[in-house]
């Protein structure tokens, strides 16, 4: 079995976050070296912004429908009756016409695609509002990148990050485990390598989660430790270059800067106290 086959057989587990430590490490190294597999993963992830846009569009339609629904019902029923009568009339006249004369070249402009779904109204609504989603300027538009919520928002949650496969995580997701994370950027090489050291020593222990949080999605830390992205949260007030150590009960045990080796020693001794080795 080649490496690619091995990775592909574990692809679902990779996205479901159920890979064993060994497989996860294998997957990460494989993704770095294999263009095909990393393209596969990227294209799976690229579905997300599209789905988000679909949800936004549907929300907007829902709101428009809600607004329209507030008007008196009797009027709407009347409109519907008139519409129905008109449709029946057009249909009957149309069939009579068709029998006698050949159809004129192009009268009705129909969309080229045949909707598979028999949901008539939905398609009708889509045709009703042409130009709704057109970009305002005439320039061609690029496909959407990930939405950026990397900087903390004022009313954002205390802690919410987006992991490598697009799931939002809160502290609740780590309940019952010791958590050590550092907020890092690629410029802080010393801090990255300090956290990487701790990850190398303790990362395989299931009782602890060590990860880095990057502020920008395009950041590549050049390290094997898992990197997540801030998702509009305040990150519990941890600033760039700093770390936070939280115990299994969710209590903060240690915080400080990651740039010096003294704090690495402090983290190690604290972890030993928590029974992580």
């Amino acid at each position, binding site marked *: 079995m080649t490496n690619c086959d091995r990775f592909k057989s574990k692809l*679902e587990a990779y*996205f*479901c976050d*159920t890979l064993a430590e060994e497989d996860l490490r294998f997957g990460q190294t494989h993704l770095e070296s294999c263009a095909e597999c990393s393209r596969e993963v990227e*294209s*799976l992830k690229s*579905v*997300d*912004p*599209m*789905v*988000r*846009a*679909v*949800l*936004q*569009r*549907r*929300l907007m*339609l*829902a*709101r*428009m*429908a*809600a607004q*329209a*629904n507030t008007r008196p019902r009797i009027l*709407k*029923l009347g*409109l*519907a009756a*008139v*519409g*129905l009568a008109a449709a029946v009339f057009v249909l009957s006249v149309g069939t009579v016409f068709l029998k006698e004369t050949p159809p004129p070249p192009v009268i009705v402009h129909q969309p080229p695609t045949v909707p*598979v*779904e028999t*949901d008539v*109204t*939905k398609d*009708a609504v*889509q045709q*009703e*509002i042409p*130009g*709704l*989603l*057109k*970009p305002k300027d005439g320039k061609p*538009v690029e*496909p*959407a990148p990930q*939405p950026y*919520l990397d900087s903390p928002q004022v009313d954002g949650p205390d802690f919410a990050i987006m992991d490598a496969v*697009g*799931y*939002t995580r*809160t502290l*609740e997701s780590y309940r019952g485990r010791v958590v050590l994370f550092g907020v890092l950027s690629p410029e802080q090489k010393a801090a990255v390598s300090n956290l990487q050291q701790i990850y190398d020593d303790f990362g395989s222990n299931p009782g602890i989660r060590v990860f880095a949080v990057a502020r920008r999605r395009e950041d590549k830390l050049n390290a094997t430790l898992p990197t997540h992205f801030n*998702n*509009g949260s305040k990150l519990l007030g941890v600033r760039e270059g700093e770390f936070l150590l939280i115990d299994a009960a969710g209590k903060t045990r240690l915080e400080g800067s990651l740039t010096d080796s003294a704090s690495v020693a402090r983290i190690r001794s604290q972890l030993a106290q928590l029974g992580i080795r």
Partner: protein
Amino acid sequence: MNRAQAPAGVTEAEFESAARESRSFLMQIAVASARNPIDAEDIVQEALMRGFRGIKHFRGDCPLRVWLSRIVVRVAINHHRSLSRRLKRWVFFGDFEIDHEGESVEFDPPDGSKNVPREALMDMDKHVGMLPDEFRMPLLMLAVEGMTIPEIAEILDIPPGTVKSRIFYGRKRLKDTLESKRRRR
């Protein structure tokens, strides 16, 4: 909240304020669960009514909005089947035609997704609509800002692992459809 002391005792006023607060959230859940977004408002309305009537069954073991979201999902599943709704949609359709003609409605999603070209978006909407409920719902719920897997699992009443795996297969199907379309061109 005093939910701990009186688990079943949610008063009318408490229900009302909770319903008002979580309304936009419920709307998003409804849009994510409904096949047709224009039903969402009706679904939320009906779910709130049912929730209000059945509030004595609320055991307080989860936040009220999660409990209401579960009702929303159930109503959404049943909604599609009822004929009266379909008729109502036609009514709405007649309404829509008159009212929004010539009116320019700005579509400005809050995140970066406004850059998705319109054609691609329509296409994607169609493909999302063709996914079976079990894949479409978790996938769209994941798109609700800030939703986590455990929350989706609680609302859909399935284990978190199942949610993740359904999201994975939903993504995979959409990706495969898009890729095969690209190849055909």
